[in-house]
Structures are given as C-alpha cells and as structure tokens.
C-alpha cells in the first residue's frame, strides 16, 4: 500500500495545481464518441427545445427544493422522472440530474428503495435512448456510495468497458471509496494500481477513503497513519480527511478520540461545518453509540442552513430506525425553530411527526413524542396533526389507534375524520375496507352522518340495497332516513332520472331539504344537458321542468319556490359549462333561452343578471360588444412630424454640424465661438444632447470649466433630454479630468449635472472622482471622496479598487476604517464580499478563504457574478478559479453558474485543458450541469479538435450569438445564423428575434438592414418562411418606416398561395381601421388566389362593415373567439410532434 502511494503521482487539493498538471488529459476519451454513431432516431428540433426548457424547469424545481430544504421528496423526483420520460428523448444532463438526486438527497427514503429507484431510472432512460458517458457512471457510483449499496467494483468496470466508456480519475476515486467502505484494502490497492499505470494523480479524496478503509479493516493505526503519509507526500489533510477520521472513531464509539481530533482540527485552523458534525452524529447512532450524540450536538455552531440540515439528520435517523435519537436531536434545535413561528399556536416538529407516520413507527412511540411536544409547549395539537398525516397516507390502522389515544386524552372525534379513509376505499370499491372503517367509527362512538354516507360510503357499493345488507351483516347501525336521503343524492349525481323519480314517488320518503341534493342534481345532469342541448332540446327542457314538477309534488324544496328552482337550475347549468362549451354551443343556448321563453317560464331579473355575468365573462359577442383596439394609428402622425421638421430653416442645423465637427477636432475655441454666433442669430436654437455634451467635454478639457457649466445650464433651460449613451459621454468627460488629477473640475461638473437633474446620480457618473484619487494612489483622499459621494449621492463606485489598493499597500488602519464604513452603509454581508473580492483580486487566497467561510455567509449571486464577469473580461483565470473552488460549501451557491463562468473564460482563452479539468471537477462535485454549460464545454473541445466525451445538447437560441456578431460587425455570419434559425424553426416558433432587427434599426445601420431585408425576402421566396418578413414588417411599422413596410408587402411570395395565416392576420391587425389598405389587401389576395382563414375573413368583414361597405364575401358565422381558438388549436396541433 505504502509503496503504491510512494510511487504514485500525488495531487494536492488545490485546483490550481490540478489544472496545471498535464496528465489530466483527454486521450482516454478517444474511443467514446463512437457510440454517437449508433444513435437511434435523431430527436426533432422541437423535442430538443422542449428538453432544454424542461431541464431548466426540472433543475429549478429540484434546485429550489434542495436549496430550501436540503432534500428532494420521492414524489417530486418521480414526477420529474415521469415528465422527462414522457417527452421521449431524455437528454444526458436530465439523466445526470435525476441520478444525482437518488442518493443522500432523499433522507426520507430507505436505502434499499433509493438503490432500486436509481436502478429504475438508469434502466428506463437507457431504454429511451439516453447515451451514458463517464459522468453518468460516476454519478451512479456516487449514489451507490451514498446509499451504502454493496456492489462489485470490478463488475462495474467491466460494465463500463462493455459500454465502451473509459473510467476517469473520479471513477477510480469512487471505486476506491467503495472498496474502503467494506474495509477491502487489497481491492483499493488494485484500483490505485490502475490509477498509477494511467498516470492519474492521487488526490486528497483517495487518502480520505483509505482512512475509512483501514479502520473498517480493523487497523486503526494504519488509518491514523494515513495522515502522516499525506503530509510526507506534501498534501495537507483537509476537513474531509478529519471527517473520515471522526467517523471511524464514531463507529468505534471512541468519544475521547473524537474530542481529541476535534481539538486538533481547531488548532490546525481547519473549519468543520455543522453538516460534517451531523455525519458524526449519524455514524455514532448507526453504531449504537447514541449516548455520545449530545456531546457532538452541543458543538454545532448553528451556521446558515443549520435548521434544514438538522431536519434532514432527523429524517435520516428516523428512516434508519433511530427515531428516539432523532427526537433528542429535534429537541436540541427547537429553539431555532421558534423564531420562525408566526402563528399563535405552535406546531414545531410537524416534519418529524409526519415522517414517523409515513415510516409506520409504532403508535405508542409516536404518542410519546406527541405528549412530549405538547407538554413542552412546542406543539399545540401534535396528535391531531399526526392523525392528519396518517389519514393522508391512508393508514387506517394507525389512524384508528391515534384516534383511540385522542379519545383517551379527551379530544373530540368527528365523523369527517373518517372521510379520507372512505375516499381511499371508495376509489377501488373496497367494501371490506369501508366496513372496517365504519366498524372502527362505531367502536370509537362516532356517529356517521348523511354527508359521509352519501358521498363516501354508498358509492363503494353496487346498490343501496346491497349496502343496506352489508352494513347489517357487519353489525353496523345506520339511521334509515339518512340512508334514503343519501340514496337520493347518489341517484341524482349519477344522473339516474328513473331511479330518482321512483325514489321521490315512494311514500317512505322523508321530508328532505332540496338543497341537500340540488348540487348533485346539477352535476349529474350536466353531462346530459351538454349532449341534449345539441340535439334534443325540447326533451332536455321537458326533463328539466319535470324534475322540478316532481320535486314540487313531493314537497321537496320546502324553502324555495318552483320558478326560482327552474331559474336557479338554469343558472347553474350555464355556470357549469366552461368557456369553450359556451362558445361552441352559443346558438343552441340562445335557442334554449328562446324555448324557455316560449314555454312562459320567466326568469327573475337577478338570475338573469347572474347568467348574463357569466356569459359576459366568457365574452360571448352577442351579449358583450368587444371593440377592437386601435393599434398602430399613431405611426402616421409621427411620420408627419418628421416631415415638418425638415421644412424648417436649415441654418441652425448647419451650425450644429459645424460645432460638432469642431468638438471632434478638439477645437474648443472655435466650437465656443460658433455656439455663441448661433445663440446670437437664434436664441431659441438648440443642439441635440450628444452635441451639447461633446461641447461640454471639449470645453472642460481645455480648462473652460465655467463655459462648460454654462452649456450644462443651457441644456437644462432648453430641456434637452439625455440618453444613456450621452450620459456615458459625461462620465468620459469627467474621467478625462480624473486622469489629470483635477478633482475640482469633476466636483463642479458632478454637482451641476446632479443639481440640474440632467442625469440621476449613478455609480458610473460618480466614479471619476474616486478614480482621480486612486490614480495618484492617494487612498485617504479616495476614501474621503467615497464617503462624500455616498453621503451626497448614495453611490459607492470604485470601492473594489480602493480596497484592493489598500490590501496591496498593507494599509491596515485605513482598510479597517473603510470596512467599518462599508459595514455601516451596506451591511456586514456586503462588506465581507467586498473584502473577499479584494483578497481574491490581489492573490491573497488564504485570507479570501477565511472570509468566505465566515459562518452565516450565504451566496449573493449578483455579487459573485460581478466578480466573475470582471475576471472573464480581464482574462484572469487564477482568482476566478479560486473563487469557484472556495465556494463549494457556500450556502445557496449555484455551482453550475460558477463552472459556467470558468468555462466562459476557458472559451475566451481557448484553453481546452483547463476546460476539461473543469469538467472533471464538476463530476467530482457530483453536479448536473445545465445544457448551456455542456454546450460551452463541447464548443471549447471541438474548437481544439478534441473529442467531446458526452452528448452535446443542441443550440436553439442563436439570437444572442447573432446579435453579438452584428455588434462585432460580422454581418455575413450573423445573417447566416439568423437564416438557419428561421429555416429550422417553424412559423409557430414563439421566440421572435425581432429585437435583433430593432437593434439594427436603432443603430441606423443601413448596410446591415439591407442584408436583413434581403434575407427576409429570400426566406419568403425559397423557404416559405414568413416569420422574418413579418417581424421586420412589424418593426418597420413600429418605427414609422411605412414606406419600407409597404415595400416589403410587394415581395411577391409574401402574398403567395402558401402565405401563412399568421402573417395575413398580423398584417390585418396592423392595418386595423385602415379600410382602404385592408380592401387593397383583400383584392390582391383575390387576384393572387390567397386562401384566407376564417379569422382573417372575420376580421376583414368587420373592417368592411365599419367602413359602411358591403362585405364582398360570406362572413364566417361564428364569433371571433371561436375562430381564434380554432386557429390556435390547429397551430398547437401542428406544433406537437407525433410522439405525444
């Protein structure tokens, strides 16, 4: 063993070291991608897109569960699993996500069940065509370890080999761990031998496993000796090493050694988290040394995330059959739970009681816990809550036992407590179950009532008669009247008219309030109504009326009058129809109303109002006039405005151009002269904001500060509005002064800008003042300026630079002051992040780690992102890498985000080795990356002609890329990307890239615009893809470019045979109220034989009618909504691939 270790290459835990070693190569993946040749049917683009969305959804679901509670419920996991299966093509990272969740994230699930679950998921996904790569095998291994599943590592390797998947460092590490779990040092050595022969580095994780391995083999000396082996190999034992040691002492029940080790850890300045100590608690309990648990629990620091972790510990202990220990742990942190209590009646420990119920713990134990919780004032009604859990889990035996305890405690028992049980039995018509529950009810002295009988009991029996017999045989007493009334309701809800009539005609019928079964009657007849209203209206009405005539005869309905009943019935029938039904049956309903009227059945005004309200809410156009909105009429007005502007005197404009030219040539004198001339000629003349600011800039640059300030004042007087870009120019102006160290100029400009309200104080606008001092390394000045700016404008720019400067200069005193100020202004958390980033930036990683490990610190995604973006922009790998590494245990840190930042930088620097090492780290961390992360990784590998060792999710959103390309002036590739996007995506694709068009238009880039409109035309003509043209058309209208819009309409195939309804309808929407255009469009459609859909025709007809013209075609008879729904339905059907 020792020899093996000596000759093996050792790897320190620092990722920086790991990443610089050349041996972590991807040679080993060379053979893998052959598999992709065997891929079955390629999933369609639509399916792919769905997968991507679904992954994000599933990830978000699981993630939020893990974040909130540190666990996943089996129900949630199964739901996501089934949802993923339903789409047909589970992607690689979906599989990873699911597998990852089958281990210790399921504390409520027994180990064997977890193993079964992971196997089930593995097999099913494979069957569905998921390609497994080494990351999946590694994830599976991790679940084996977490679930204490005993398996043969050699078989596992063989399985990988037969699947043509090469194991990597993480695989071997986990196999070693598996051998060590069972104390098989020989097996572990064999794997170590493999690693050595492949020149793979031996990391801390391997040593940690060996500690466990030796101890489990009964050799504590060797276990302890591993630490010195590590040290001699230059690897410092980390928190995980000590945790391994603590766990093996715990297994031996050696509390003295545990305490001693904890002291060593403390002295070595190593931080063990509460979560680590909880593992020790778990190990102690499992090895029946729970008497030592309190000593460990006492040491917990209650850091951020403690409560969910402690709850999970309790759940795990209960699952493993140690509910007594779990209860003592629970009692140790109820104080922390109290703080979160808002209600008046405490209900602490619900999660505990629920899990006990789910795990079928003995009722006497549960009752004991309940008593304790109640007596100590932690829970006001623990027994009732546990009963609720037992009922929800349909555990009749437990529920009855709990009710017995409740009765003994003098708590009331009520008939509806049994309803959940009856519901359960009713579902599979389980008569013995129903009778058992009824007997328990009787035994506990709970009387069943009418509701329980009619809703929950009778439906389980084939008939009321058989129910009567069974109940009698089972010795259960029931009130006869209750039975009849219940029977009445059952028949009504079944829609059994004949049965209902005969029951009501029976002389034995007691006096029953109609309201008792009116609702049933309505629900029972609803189905009939919908069918009959279509064909046999008179019959329907006949029956409607008859039911009530009968009811009147039988003197049911003692409280309500006959006519009211009919009307009320009618109201409920209408109400029970959903919107679509009302729309599709509009005609029939009208007819029905007419018939009722003919039959002289009047409806009271109130009821009529109720019905009308419903119909109105469904927007039935006959009752509700739904005026169409004027959409884009204002566009024409804007165009007119522009024209009048052109007709005005041109001279000031010429001046403006000239002034601007002077500014560009840095000629302050001439610019000022021209400006004054212009003012003399025309005191009203106004420059645009950009030109004013250019003038301010050139003036202040050349020492004409007062003149510059006058310009700012003039801007205010003339109400010149500043845009984002012009404000940027102001910042630039002040930065110029900062470079010269001219703080006075900056202060004056700042003051003027903010006092006049030309721009709101922003971090950018305030930063030049700080930069001014930082430039000259005047940190005290910079700090004073920071305080000044914060007090005056509530901004804190350049704080990172200031702190970095102080850290580098070693000015502890001022640093302390800055920290105090920050803490006071922005809170301690923000201050810590500021300090953390400064340490990272200046390469003081040890200090940085201390900061980020501050108890209670949690992830602040926006702050982390800020620093990451900064590193990426400056191509600083080391600080970024260190941040990613240090935040592994940071509470609520999104790990995928972190690795994504890292990979983005790898992409920038085209560093495939680092990218690949990042992937390895992700596996080590057992992370299921998002698709974008995998794509990025694959991109980097592909660009370097490296094989990609996993399945790459397809990209479907080129928009950002194309926008990016456009910005970087690479028009041709942008157009290419866009074009492929439109060709690939159907017309129905919801995502529009119109914003790209808008950007181009905003930028006034005519060259690009020409290419894009050419592309739109090409897409229409060659690919019958009209979305691009439609997008462009809308943007044209939106931005007032009516001529261009009209020109686009001339594109021959845009009004071609196949022209998509979408476009026509959209065009019509835009031309709304513009009758002549609509008419022209219709005529052209006629000439060119364009087939319009019904919605379009309906819309056209409306325009004709509104203009007072005769509609030249047959107007579709149904409502707008009807055709809109129809169209939507057609679209969504054509959108759904056949696999659904």
């Amino acid at each position, binding site marked *: 063993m020792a020899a093996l270790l000596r000759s093996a290459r050792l790897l320190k835990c620092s990722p920086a070291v790991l990443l610089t070693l050349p041996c972590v190569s991807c040679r080993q993946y060379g053979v893998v991608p052959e598999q992709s040749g065997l891929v079955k049917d390629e999933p369609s683009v639509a399916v792919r897109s769905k997968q991507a969305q679904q992954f994000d959804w599933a990830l978000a679901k699981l993630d939020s569960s893990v974040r909130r509670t540190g666990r996943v419920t089996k129900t949630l996991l199964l739901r996501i699993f089934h949802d993923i299966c339903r789409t047909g093509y589970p992607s690689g990272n979906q599989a990873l996500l699911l597998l990852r969740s089958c281990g210790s994230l399921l504390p409520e699930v027994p180990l064997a069940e977890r193993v079964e679950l992971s196997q089930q998921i593995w097999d099913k996904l494979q069957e569905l065509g998921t390609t497994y790569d080494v990351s999946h095998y590694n994830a599976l291994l991790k679940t084996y370890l977490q679930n204490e599943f005993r398996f043969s590592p050699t078989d596992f390797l063989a399985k990988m080999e037969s699947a043509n998947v090469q194991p990597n460092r993480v695989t071997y590490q986990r196999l070693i761990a598996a051998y060590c779990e069972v104390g098989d040092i020989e097996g572990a050595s064999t794997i170590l031998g493999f690693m050595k022969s492949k020149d793979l580095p031996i990391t801390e994780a391997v040593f940690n496993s060996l500690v466990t391995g030796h101890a489990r083999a009964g050799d504590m000396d060797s276990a302890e000796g591993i630490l010195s082996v590590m040290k001699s190999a230059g690897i410092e034992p980390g928190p995980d090493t000590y945790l391994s040691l603590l766990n093996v002492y715990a297994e031996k029940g050696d509390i003295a050694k545990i305490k001693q080790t904890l002291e060593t850890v403390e002295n070595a300045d190593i931080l063990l988290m509460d979560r680590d100590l909880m593992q020790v608690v778990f190990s102690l309990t499992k090895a029946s040394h729970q008497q030592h648990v309190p000593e460990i629990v006492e040491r917990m620091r209650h850091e951020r995330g403690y409560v969910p972790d402690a709850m999970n510990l309790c759940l795990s202990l209960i699952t493993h059959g140690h509910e007594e220990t779990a209860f003592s742990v629970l009692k140790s942190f109820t104080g922390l739970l109290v703080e979160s209590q808002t209600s008046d009646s405490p209900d602490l420990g619900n999660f505990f009681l629920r899990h006990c119920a789910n795990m079928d713990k003995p009722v006497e134990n549960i009752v004991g816990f309940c008593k304790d919780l109640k007596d100590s004032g932690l829970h006001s009604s623990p027994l009732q809550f546990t009963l609720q859990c037992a009922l*929800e889990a349909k555990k009749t035996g437990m529920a009855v036992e709990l009710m017995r305890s409740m009765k003994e405690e003098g708590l009331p028992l*009520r008939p509806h407590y049994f309803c959940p049980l009856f519901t359960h039995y009713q579902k599979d018509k389980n008569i013995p179950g129903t009778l058992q529950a009824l007997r328990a009810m009787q035994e506990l002295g709970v009387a069943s009532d009418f509701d329980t009988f009619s809703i929950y009991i009778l439906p389980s029996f084939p008939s009321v008669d058989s129910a009567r017999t069974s109940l009698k045989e089972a010795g259960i007493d029931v009130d006869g009247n209750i039975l009849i009334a219940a029977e009445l309701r059952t028949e009504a809800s079944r829609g059994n008219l004949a049965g209902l009539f005969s029951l009501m005609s029976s002389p034995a019928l007691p006096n029953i309030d109609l309201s008792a079964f009116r609702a049933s009657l309505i629900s029972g007849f609803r189905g009939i109504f919908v069918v009959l209203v279509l064909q046999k209206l008179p019959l329907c009405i006949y029956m409607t009326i008859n039911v009530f005539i009968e009811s009147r005869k039988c003197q049911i309905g003692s409280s309500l009058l006959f006519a009211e009943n009919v009307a009320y019935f009618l109201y409920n029938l209408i109400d029970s129809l959903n919107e679509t039904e009302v729309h599709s049956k509009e005609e029939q309903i009208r007819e029905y109303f007419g018939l009722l009227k003919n039959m002289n059945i009047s409806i009271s005004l109130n009821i009529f*109002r109720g019905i009308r309200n419903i119909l109105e809410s469904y927007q039935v156009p006959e009752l509700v006039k739904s005026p169409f909105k004027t959409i884009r009429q204002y566009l024409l007005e804007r165009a007119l405005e522009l024209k009048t502007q052109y007709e005005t005197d041109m001279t000031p404009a010429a001046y403006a151009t000239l002034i601007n030219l002077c500014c560009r040539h840095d000629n302050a004198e001439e610019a000022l002269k021209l400006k004054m001339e212009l003012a003399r000629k025309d005191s009203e003349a106004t420059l645009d904001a950009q030109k004013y600011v250019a003038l301010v800039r050139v003036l202040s640059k050349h020492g004409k500060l007062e003149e510059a300030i006058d310009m700012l004042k003039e801007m205010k007087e003339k109400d010149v509005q500043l845009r984002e870009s012009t404000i940027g120019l102001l910042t630039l102006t002040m930065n110029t002064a900062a470079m010269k160290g001219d703080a006075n100029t900056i202060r004056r400009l700042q003051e003027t800008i903010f006092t006049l309200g030309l721009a709101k104080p922003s971090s950018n606008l305030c930063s030049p003042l700080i930069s001014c001092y930082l430039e000259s390394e005047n940190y005290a000045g910079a700090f004073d300026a920071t305080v000044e700016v914060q007090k005056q404008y509530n901004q804190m720019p350049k704080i990172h630079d200031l702190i970095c400067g102080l850290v580098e200069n070693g000015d502890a005193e001022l640093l302390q002051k800055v920290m105090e100020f920050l803490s006071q202004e922005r809170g301690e958390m923000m201050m810590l992040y500021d300090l953390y980033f400064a340490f990272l930036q200046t390469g003081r990683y040890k200090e940085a780690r201390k900061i980020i490990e501050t108890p209670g610190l949690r992830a602040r995604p926006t702050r982390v992102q800020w620093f990451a973006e900064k590193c990426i922009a400056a191509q600083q790998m080391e600080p970024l890498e260190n941040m990613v590494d240090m935040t592994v245990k940071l509470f609520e840190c999104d790990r995928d985000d972190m690795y994504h930042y890292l990979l983005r930088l790898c992409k920038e620097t085209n560093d495939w080795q680092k990218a690949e090492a990042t992937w390895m780290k992700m596996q080590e961390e057992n992370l299921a990356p998002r698709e974008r992360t995998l794509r990025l990784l694959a991109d980097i590998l592909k660009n370097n002609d490296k094989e990609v060792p996993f399945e790459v999710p397809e990209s479907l959103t080129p928009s950002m890329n194309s926008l990016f390309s456009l910005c970087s002036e690479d028009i041709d590739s942008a157009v290419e990307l866009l074009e492929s996007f439109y060709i690939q995506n159907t017309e129905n694709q919801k995502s529009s890239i119109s914003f790209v068009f808008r950007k181009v238009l905003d930028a006034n880039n005519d060259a690009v615009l020409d290419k894009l409109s050419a592309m739109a035309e090409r897409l229409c003509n060659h690919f019958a893809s009209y979305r691009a043209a439609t997008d462009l058309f809308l943007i044209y209208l939106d931005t007032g470019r009516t001529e261009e819009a009209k020109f686009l309409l001339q594109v021959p195939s845009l009004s071609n045979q196949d022209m998509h309804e979408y476009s026509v309808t959209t065009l019509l929407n835009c031309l709304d109220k513009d009758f002549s255009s609509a008419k022209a469009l219709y005529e052209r459609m006629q000439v060119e034989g364009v087939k319009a859909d019904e919605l379009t025709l309906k819309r056209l007809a409306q325009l004709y009618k509104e203009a007072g013209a005769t509609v030249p075609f047959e107007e579709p008879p149904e409502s707008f909504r009807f055709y809109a729904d129809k169209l939507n339905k057609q679209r969504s059907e054509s959108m759904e691939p056949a696999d659904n």
Partner: protein
Amino acid sequence: MLHSQGLNMAATAAGKKVFEVFVSKVPWTVATKEVKEYFRQFGQVKKCLLPFDKETGFHRGFCWIGFTTEEGLQNALQKDPHIIEGARLQVQKNRKPFSGRKSNKEAEDN
C-alpha cells in the same frame, strides 16, 4: 346540503339578502357543524359552505358563512382574532360572491 355557486344570487332571487364572510385557514379537524357553532355567537347563521375535496376526503380549508343580518356580518368582522380549537381563522368580507366558482367544482356536493 350545500351549494357553492351563486349563494348570494340565489338568495337575492328569493328576495332575502345573505350577508357573507369568507373564512380561510380553517383547521382540518373542524367541519361544518363546528364552524357554524362558532359563528353563531355573532348572529344567526343561514349558510355555511365548507367545500370538501372528494379526492382526498379533507376539506379545503376555507368556507363561506352567510348571516341573516347585516349585524351578524358586522359582529363577525369586528372580532379579532377568531380562534377555533386553537387555530386562528382569517375572516373577511366576501367581496366577490362568484369568486372561486370554477375552482371548487368538485366540492359542490358538500
């Protein structure tokens, strides 16, 4: 026994106004009887609709109480807190008589 729909409306149709409150956070342990009994202290209770979920057999935790008089309604609204079996109820004026109409279809039989 109860109907969730158009409670107000039916009553108005009958020429009798009902003064309704909407009650939420009803503990699972109490049913119509207990809720009705509790609200009786504020005035005569004409209606009590506590919908049950037929899938689970539990009620949905909210209900409507109809008083015969405006006074009953006001009495109920003025009392705070409303505690039933140790649990605090939320009681508010039922502003939208037709709200929740579609959502508790299954419950109407109760």
